[in-house]
């Protein structure tokens, strides 16, 4: 049997029962469509979570103070990050000792009441250095970011986040050159950052940056830092840097047991991995629920093919009588099943794609239709045709031509 004849026979057989073929295809369309849509929703979620983690900077190691213990290491803990155990010197030491670190940006952050031109707001004021913009991925929209010169000179300058600018000066205004008052100290606005969007719990745009030296001298009145962000040169060196910083600070703080460290070192890679493990599990869950409908669709194919074989028993007998071999017959019925799933798979992919676009359009949930997901869906639909078409095709091929011709 030639391939073109196989197509001819398949087309003739499927178009003879249009409604039945259509309904069977619909089962596969729903199965494949929901698998594609579910995977795209899962991958979209994974993508947006990773993007928001990356937005705080790439290849980051963050050093934060440990627990604040009461006098004599009492039982009351004020929580992680609350202690004032990290000093400016620690940051300087990291800068000096950790050669693999690309950039080090210490910061001191605290909330203050800000006033400007009669308006006022309460927001996060971060004292930091010039490299912060690189390490934490802060882009400047207008003016400039804090410079090393500003830090050395204890300049009273500030860079505003867009939300803070909106609150103090109104939306869309240029605040550069204006003056704001923080804790009874006047700061000159020298820049405006680009919007980064919120990360759910914190608004990265409601913020004010000032030189770290200015913040320590005029606002905090001490030389502690709240976070030291260290940028590694690539993702591979994150773990090494994390270990080196831990060793360095343990030594500097005279702590022998790492369990008792008065600081913690967080690796961005760990956060990303945890997040992707969660989203992968979610994607698997969604896809396997959708996969159930795919199996139901496959059973529909098998059901239809078994009915078809019974209905066409005489035809099978005739084909065998005029010289068709088992292989010819089984190939014909297998081709019908695979064609059904192939068409169903194709429509299902389009439908799944369209519905994931619709989900994004109407609910704002990020979706991502990836090529591997489509290839997978396509492969699965073809495989379903073969798996669920195999048994009916075998049954057709095994029919005895005498019985088949006699069948009424």
């Amino acid at each position, binding site marked *: *049997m030639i391939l073109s004849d196989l197509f001819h026979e398949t087309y*003739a057989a499927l178009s003879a029962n249009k409604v039945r073929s259509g309904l069977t295809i619909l089962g596969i369309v729903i199965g494949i469509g929901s698998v594609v849509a579910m995977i795209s929703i899962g991958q979209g979620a994974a993508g947006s979570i990773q993007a928001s983690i990356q937005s705080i900077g790439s290849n980051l190691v963050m050093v934060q103070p440990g627990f604040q213990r009461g006098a004599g290491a009492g039982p009351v803990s004020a929580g992680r990050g609350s202690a004032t155990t990290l000093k400016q010197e620690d940051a300087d030491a990291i800068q000096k000792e950790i050669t693999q670190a690309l950039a080090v940006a210490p910061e001191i952050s605290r909330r203050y009441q800000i006033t400007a031109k009669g308006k006022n707001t309460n927001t996060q004021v971060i004292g930091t250095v010039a490299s912060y913009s690189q390490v934490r991925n802060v882009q400047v929209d207008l003016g400039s970011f804090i410079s090393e010169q500003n830090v050395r000179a204890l300049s009273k300058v500030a860079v505003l986040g867009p939300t803070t600018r909106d609150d103090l000066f109104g939306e869309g205004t240029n605040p550069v050159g204006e003056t704001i008052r923080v804790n009874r100290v006047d700061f000159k606005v020298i820049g405006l950052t680009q919007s980064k969007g919120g990360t759910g719990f914190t608004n990265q745009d409601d913020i004010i940056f000032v030189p770290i030296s200015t913040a320590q001298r005029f606002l905090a009145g001490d030389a502690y830092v709240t976070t030291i962000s260290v940028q590694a040169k690539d993702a591979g060196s994150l773990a090494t840097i994390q270990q080196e910083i831990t060793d360095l600070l343990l030594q500097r703080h005279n702590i022998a047991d790492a369990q008792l460290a008065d600081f913690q070192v967080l690796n961005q890679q760990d956060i990303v991995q945890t997040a992707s493990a969660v989203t992968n599990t979610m994607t698997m869950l969604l896809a396997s629920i959708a996969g159930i409908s795919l199996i139901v669709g496959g059973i529909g194919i098998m059901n239809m093919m078994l009915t078809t074989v019974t209905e066409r028993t*005489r035809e099978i007998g005739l084909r065998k*009588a*005029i*010289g*068709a071999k088992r292989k*010819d017959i089984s190939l014909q019925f297998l081709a019908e099943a695979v064609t059904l799933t192939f068409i169903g798979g194709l429509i299902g992919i389009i439908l799944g794609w369209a519905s994931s676009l619709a989900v994004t359009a109407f609910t704002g949930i990020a979706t991502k239709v990836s090529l591997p997901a489509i290839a997978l869906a396509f492969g699965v639909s073809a495989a379903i045709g073969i798996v669920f078409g195999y048994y009916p095709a075998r049954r057709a091929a095994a029919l005895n031509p*005498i019985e088949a011709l006699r069948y009424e």
Partner: protein
Amino acid sequence: MIECKNIVKTYRSGEIDTQVLKNISFKINDNEFVAIMGPSGSGKSTLMHIIGCLDTPTSGEYLLDGQDASKLSADELADVRRQKIGFVFQAFNLLPRATVLRNVSLPLVYAAVAKEEREERAKETLRASAFPEGFWHHYSNQLSGGMMQRVAIARALVNNPALILADEPTGNLDTKTGAVVLATFQLLHQEQGRTIVLITHEPYVAEHAERIIHIRDGEIVSDGVNRNRRLINNDH
């Protein structure tokens, strides 16, 4: 040439063996027109299945065109059928949603003949059997019974087989169209020298053949030249 040597066919249902064919032996030469006649239950259908290579005997030898077909596998039998036998059935067994041309060329599909050549051979065969050209592209379920059987005969001929095997070919037709079909067989025999085996239970139909083999209870009761042959005047 067909030769049956001591053919026995036994069916087993449950614990009971039923011997349907008991030691059947006969020979059919090329260019013969033979009718195998017997009442229902005589074993003539079983004999037809063995002659048609649809089934194999329990014991004995069956030689078709010099080849022993009694011990072949299912797929080997399919090859023999495709190359050497053309079938005509009582119920025509055409593909309903296929054109006359497609039906006639169907055996060539399984012989893996290319489409153009297939159509050419199907047209030749239809032309030779004087099948009206206006119906070549009709679907077979739009034809009358007589027309359908003529399509089936053309289908049996398209492979140029050594043997035409007709199983009650007039069983579903009225007398008049039945006569046309029988006339076609006589024509194929006389003009093209085809070997034809006709299986029937009707003496009237059998009398159109040259030779009649009577079979009853699985045994041949008589085998000889048909002395009262009915010849149909073949003027189209």
